[in-house]
């Protein structure tokens, strides 16, 4: 992205990092079994990238940003999430 410079590099475009899709870094991909999910949202809390969205029941991933770290799968108390190889 090219953007004109501002005075003093002050950046008012808050949250603009979202234009960069870190999902491209992923080598492993989380898959959630919503049947097993108990909506405890621990995965949501622990995600370093804000890539998990809460649903009324269960969760969904924003694969634009999920880096595939696997914290969600490891922390899921009911093993509802598994990591599979990312297919590009």
């Amino acid at each position: 992205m090219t953007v004109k410079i501002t005075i003093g590099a002050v950046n008012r475009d808050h949250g603009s990092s979202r234009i960069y899709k870190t999902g491209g870094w992923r080598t492993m991909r989380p898959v959630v079994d919503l049947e097993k999910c108990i909506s405890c949202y621990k995965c949501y809390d622990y995600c370093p990238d804000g890539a998990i969205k809460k649903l009324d029941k269960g969760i969904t991933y924003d694969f634009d940003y999920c880096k595939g770290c696997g914290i969600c799968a490891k922390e899921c108390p009911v093993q509802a999430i598994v990591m599979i190889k990312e297919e590009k």
Partner: protein
Amino acid sequence: MTKEDLELFASGHRACAGCGEGTAVRQILKAAGPNTVATICTGCLEVISTGYPETAWEIPIIHAAFENSASVAAGVEVALKELGRKEGVNVIAFGGDGGTFDIGFQALSGMLERGHDITYVCVDNEAYMNTGIQRCSSTPYGASTTTSPVGKLSIGESRPKKPIAAICAAHGIPYTATASIAYINDLKKKVKKAVETEGPAFLHVFAPCPTGWRHGSDSTIEIARLAVETGVFVLWEAEDGDICNLKITQKPKKRKPVKDYLKSQRRFAHLSDEDIEHIQKEVDEKCEKYGF
């Protein structure tokens, strides 16, 4: 949607996969809310979140240099008050462990002593990560870093971790706490308490770094939890600097062996059984002091 569903630390930041700092900052901002001005230090946090023309921040922030998050925040806080804009606005100063324990220690001490209404948050990953894993006074005994490498004549880091939170509390500040990204509710509760406290508060937040500690990116939270469960990192809070009466906020029912924690990270891979025993003894003594 509740207020805390707002993502004030936006996705797209360039933290490594599994970065503990990412979870820490994201959750701290959720707890503090949008009416917050923050200062940050040079270090991973600044590099991953402010590359022009992007910024991951949904709140106003200023990064000036490595060692002065506390004094920049002092200027912000006093200016907000002078200009009549401080009411209802939190000022948070973020620092890495390097920016807090070492190079920023003087500025931090000055800020605490002067009594600014600032919550200082040290996000501790136990080394200078941004420059490539150099030792810091936060690096624990036995950890191999690029400037405390293990070798024929070296066990890795040879000095114990500096007790930064106790030192800050000794300034007599209204609120001091240690927290961990493995205990989100505890962390958020402490953040809220800190920002609601009038005057300076210090939060020491334990946040593993998969790249620097050399563990799998999925283990960040597990390792942070193990640190608490083994007694390596103790979660407590203290009011008015009264560290003799600090409150342990997360007491492990039965402490796990320190070995479980050390074996989870390759920065400790070289430690012998004897070394581990030595560390276990130190942790036992420390935990006894804390009363468990």
